[in-house]
């Protein structure tokens, strides 16, 4: 460690695919001593559903690798394991700067992530999350609570993952007014609709294929009934357009009722049907919409795309891959760096 390096102690909450991805990326970061951003992240605890591992000095990259090899449950570790310790206890009692919340999504109650995040705020810790649930159900509340406790909440892994949609709109379009945003924000449904439209495959076969390829979950409701897209719409709407809405305010229709006939019919008009999420001044919605092939939004396969309609700079479209585990984990690193920079300017001001 060289002089002037800034330590950032991190508690990782959730040890699934994204959680493991985060440890991989951070472990690599430890080894990159040539980094000139003076950033030294250390994982001081990992909390999962059945316990935690804690090391106030930070786990070495070898140890993180060992956890991953050994697999579930992480709390079984003889040296650092705390078998019955809950994530809430860890968040409250372990000293750290940032909580990385990557537990599974729950769009009914947003738990346990919602409690994790509020507990973190109350104990003065910053939060990076990739979990859409708490944001979809209580984003205005959470941003207010973060501000009240003078901490940061970052969530770029929730929308776009690898494609920096949130940052693009917030930073690159600053000064302009975004009048409407519209996007294909879910790779799974886009894959299914593309297969149906291009290869004349039935909905069920396309879904089964998507599951085989690992694009769709075994329980695909979140994707095909439009909830995942709706969650992203809520986040975009709050963060970029300043509209304080929650999931209840979004009018949601999934793709179950899109038939091959409808798709064939749209071809006659040089169009196809996509699951589009939209927010404008009046309302937020998610529904299958017929769009022209020439529309820049019209991307195929697992690609995502979003068009920002601005007051002065007209339409801007971003296209990128939907997120897998490692893309999402990279968004976590982006957020951690952002917090580190924000903290630096805050301390100086």
């Amino acid at each position, binding site marked *: 460690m060289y002089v002037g390096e800034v330590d950032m102690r991190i508690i990782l909450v959730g040890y699934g695919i994204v959680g493991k991805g985060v440890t991989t990326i951070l472990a690599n970061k430890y080894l990159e001593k040539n980094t000139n951003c003076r950033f030294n992240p250390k994982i001081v605890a990992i909390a999962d559903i059945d316990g935690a591992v804690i090391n106030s000095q930070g786990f070495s990259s070898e140890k993180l690798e060992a956890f991953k090899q050994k697999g579930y449950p992480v709390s079984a570790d003889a040296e650092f394991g705390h078998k019955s310790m809950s994530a809430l206890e860890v968040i409250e009692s372990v000293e750290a700067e940032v909580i990385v919340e990557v537990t599974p999504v729950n769009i009914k109650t947003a738990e346990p992530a919602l409690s994790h995040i*509020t507990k973190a705020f*109350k104990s003065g810790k910053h939060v990076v999350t990739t979990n859409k649930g708490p944001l979809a*159900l209580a984003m*205005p*509340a959470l941003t*207010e*609570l973060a501000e009240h*406790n003078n901490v940061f909440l970052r969530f770029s892994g929730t929308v776009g993952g690898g494609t920096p949609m949130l940052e693009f709109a917030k930073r690159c379009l600053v000064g302009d007014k975004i009048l409407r945003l519209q996007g294909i924000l879910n790779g799974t449904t886009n894959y299914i609709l593309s297969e149906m439209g291009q290869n004349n495959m039935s909905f069920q076969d396309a879904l089964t294929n998507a599951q085989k390829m690992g694009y769709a979950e075994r329980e695909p409701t979140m994707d095909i009934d439009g909830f995942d897209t709706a969650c992203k719409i809520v986040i975009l709407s709050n963060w970029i357009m300043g509209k*304080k809405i929650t999931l209840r305010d979004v009018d949601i229709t999934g793709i179950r009722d899109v038939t091959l006939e409808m798709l064939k019919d749209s071809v006659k008009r040089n169009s196809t049907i996509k699951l589009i999420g939209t927010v404008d001044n009046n309302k937020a919605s998610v529904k299958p919409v017929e769009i022209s092939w020439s529309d820049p939004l019209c991307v195929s396969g697992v690609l995502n795309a979003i068009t920002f309609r601005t007051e002065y700079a007209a339409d801007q479209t971003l296209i990128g891959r939907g997120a897998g585990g490692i893309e999402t984990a990279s968004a976590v690193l982006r957020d951690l760096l952002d917090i580190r920079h924000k903290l630096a300017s805050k301390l100086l001001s």
Partner: protein
Amino acid sequence: MKKVIMKFGGTSVGTGKNIRQVADIVSQYSKDYRITVVVSALAGVTNKLLEVAGQAQKSDETLIKNFTEELLQKHKEAISSAIVNKPLQQEVNGIVEKIIVELEKILTGICYVGELTPKSKDYVVSFGERLSAPIVCGAIQEDNIEARCFTGKDAGIVTDSNFGEANPLMNYTMHLVCEKLGAFLEKGGVPVVTGFIAANQDGVVTTVGRGGSDYTATILGVALEVDEVWIWTDVDGIMTTDPKLVPAAKLLPQLSYQEAAEMAIFGAKAMHPRALGPVSKANIPVRIRNSFQPEKTGTLITKEPVANVKQAVKAVAMIKDLAMLNVNGAAMVGAPGSYTKVFDVLGKNNINVMMISVAASEANISMMIKRSMLSRAISNIETALLEHGGLVSEVTAEDDVVVIAVIGAHMKGSLGLASKIFDIVAKKGINIRMIAQGSSELNISFVVKEKDGVEVVKAIHEEFDLDKT
């Protein structure tokens, strides 16, 4: 089904008989509305709690015992006349007794420590509403309505930790209130929520301060997205002026949020602007009604006043117990920051300035402050700015004055209005000591001698036909 908040003030829940009436109102409307009830403490209890808390820090233990006995008696009496059903009566008695035991412990603690922090003060004051709510709740249950008691904290109202004057974290509160009351309301239940009190994010009791239980009502109204907020009180609504001064005073059937905020100078009978904040943003109408005459429709406060009433002047108020303070000093002329020094001295000494008037010559500032604060204000300004700074050359005061405020949204841009008002005063041979009108033009305020106050109010009330609306 339409949703309403019904807030009942201290007099409306002042006695057991009144509480019975409150329960009847709730049960009558519960057929057509989903109701959330917000209650104040029984009349006088909050002030008494504050007083006793203040005395407790001076370590008088016998006083605590006497007070809690008296408080228990008062609430038991209320229970016995509000609730007829014996088992229910017993149940509520039990709840109240338990709360009073807790209060006694707190007061004894303050007594031993000999210190009353803002935090413990809020806690003590919260007992007023914590005691009244179970009684109101019991009385409503007696009418076979599923009612349940919630403290502000249980209902999900979260504030910052500014004890005594806590500000709600509105978005977080909206989220929690929906979560905590939503399902119960959907099932047809009637939540009875303690007004005035809330909690910070760590669950420590806070009070919302200015605006009080009305503020709680409007916060809940916004969180639950209700159709209207009804403030039940002991008057018919907001009047054109104080009926004690002018018997011809009339009820104002409709007002805008802005006008209603101006009416705050009428004092306890109107709503504090702070309480109007949440609803005016969310555009939820507020209705002020008389719980002793529930058949009357009261005053409706909405975004826009009704179109057909284009009348410029809506109301006239007289504000008493004030004094005029004049600060003179040639050194203030053209000196940036000189006024800041004057107001800084007053602010630091906790003196609120109600009205200000300065002519373009800049050599003299006139302001209205509470009469009880006058000596303190004079001495502080003289000490800070006359002796040391030399900024001020003379401080004078008049303590036999009142403010007359003429109010109305359509006064804006209405030509000749000021001339008419001052003409009325001049015709009575009365001198005006000071004048102020902000650019919002909702309010023209001026100062006359106290002995002339009532005559001026009567004359303006009559000349602007306020008795004929």
